[in-house]
């Protein structure tokens, strides 16, 4: 459903992504792996339209490379930010309402309640998003907001970071639940090998802006190039 073909991003003289090509099939949960600065967030940014990329990005058979941000969201690409970015000065419910009205093009109160319930935010529905939520709640709000746009593809940027292992495990279950419940395709940035192995059907590894491995988690993590590039972070 998502096809990247030689996607390249440069910031001034710096090449952040160079010639990234891969495909994601409907219903996949893809792990996006790589050390810090490898270009994972830049890849998300170029898919969701936050940065301009060269090459070709198509989504559901439609080229979106030069489509503006909001149109990609409406086409069904939802994303979260690594550092949660709630819409300031809005309540949690208003955050979802805006996402739904503009992202999905309709207003359905029941569905918002449903998303709030799934993301365990119902009790904070009318609290101010930017000030009254704890970090983990903000992260759940990030996902809830993305879900409210009724995406087909969900890009999750380190949503599991900072959780202790029990919480992580239950959050993984939550993601699987979402995957099934909303019929999603998911790309998730994650450092933890176990999480990737437990959650994803496939993993893609970036290093220095280049794609160095693509395969099942097991294949990828046994790839010597990956081990070399990744040692520091993965086995610390």
């Amino acid at each position, binding site marked *: 459903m998502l096809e990247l073909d030689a996607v390249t991003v440069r910031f001034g003289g710096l090449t952040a992504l160079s010639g990234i090509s891969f495909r994601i099939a409907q219903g996949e949960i893809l792990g996006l792996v790589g050390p810090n600065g490898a270009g994972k967030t830049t890849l998300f940014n170029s898919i969701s339209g936050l940065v301009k990329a060269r090459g070709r990005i198509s989504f559901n058979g439609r080229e979106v490379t030069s489509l503006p941000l909001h149109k990609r969201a*409406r086409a069904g690409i939802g994303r979260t930010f690594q550092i949660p970015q709630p819409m300031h000065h809005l309540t949690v419910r208003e955050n979802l309402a*805006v996402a739904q009205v*503009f992202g999905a093009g309709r207003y359905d109160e029941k569905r918002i309640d449903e998303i709030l319930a799934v993301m365990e935010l119902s009790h904070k529905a009318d609290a101010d998003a930017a000030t009254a939520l704890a970090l983990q709640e903000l992260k759940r709000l990030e996902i809830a*907001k*993305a879900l409210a*746009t009724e995406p087909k593809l969900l890009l999750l940027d380190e949503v599991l970071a900072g959780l202790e292992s029990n919480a992580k495990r239950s959050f993984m279950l939550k993601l699987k639940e979402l995957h099934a419940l909303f019929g999603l395709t998911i790309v998730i940035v994650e450092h933890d090998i176990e999480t990737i192995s437990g959650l994803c059907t496939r993993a893609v590894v970036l290093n220095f802006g280049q794609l160095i491995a693509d395969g099942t988690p097991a294949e990828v993590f046994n790839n010597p190039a990956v081990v070399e590039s990744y040692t520091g972070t993965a086995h610390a």
Partner: protein
Amino acid sequence: MPVTSNASAQAAPAAASQRGRGALIGAGLLALALLPLVAGASPYMLGLLISALILAGLALSWALLGNLGGMVSFGHAAFFGVGAYGSALLAGKLGVPVLLAIPLGGLIATVFSLAMLPALRLSGPYFALAILAYAQIFRILATELDWLTGGAAGLQRYPGLPTVLGFNLADRAGSYVLVLACVVVFALVYMALRRSHVGTALRAIADSEDATRVVGVNATVLKTWMLLLSAFIAGVFGALNAHIIGFLEPDYAFSGIWSVMPIIAAVFGGYRSVLGPIFGAVVIYLFDQVIAKSLIPVGHQILLGIVLAIMVLLAPNGLSGLVARFLPRLAGRGLSNAEKGHA
């Protein structure tokens, strides 16, 4: 006071009581606004109030752009002047009925604001001063195109406000009611807009543009609409003022006063709220004309400057922010909505 359907959709169970309180506040304010008529205020007092309400409309237009559009303008005189000239020329040269010419004046201001669309990409001070440049350009054009505008000598033979159903809008009481009605209508439009999803999204854009766009909000289009609407409102009040004053010249129609006073009024009243700029304009104008002027006959604007500076430093949310802080229970939704977010 009617509450829009959009608002009720969001506010769910609390809506009924909110609506009741809103209606009560609305009725109270309207009664207050009509008080000068009932109490038989002198033409002088009504004249002051009319000027204050013209300023209130302009401040509302400025605050709408600032609050919903996230854009601070230093050149609202541009819209005000274009609206004034547009309406005066339509009525004076083409014989368009004045009450039709006034909204058309607003429309012409809107059309002119299309020239400012490139400025939407600019941030903060750049936008503010780009608009100032437009105001200057329009002023010079109005001076130079004398075949159309009468040049520096200005326009003075164009019709004033008419008599409608035996009610003379040209006398002080009539003008007051008309201007007041316009302020009320635009305040209601603003309230409805702010409570709608578009308004919610716009509030979000102001502080978290990327986060808002990434959920599908086309920030540029929404901001464009706000610019056009703000231009329309400012243009209408410019047109009203032109027909009340009965004389236009470029230095007056595009005077810096029309850019400066709405900022002072809106910041003083609290530009994040709907009623703040209106109250701010009335209080500031009366303070300036009645009190400041008697204290310092020449240079009394120094007091305005001091008031503005103090407000920015000590109460950036203006009077309405203070009201919301100290009278949380009494403050209605109309005043306090924004402050909840800015606490």
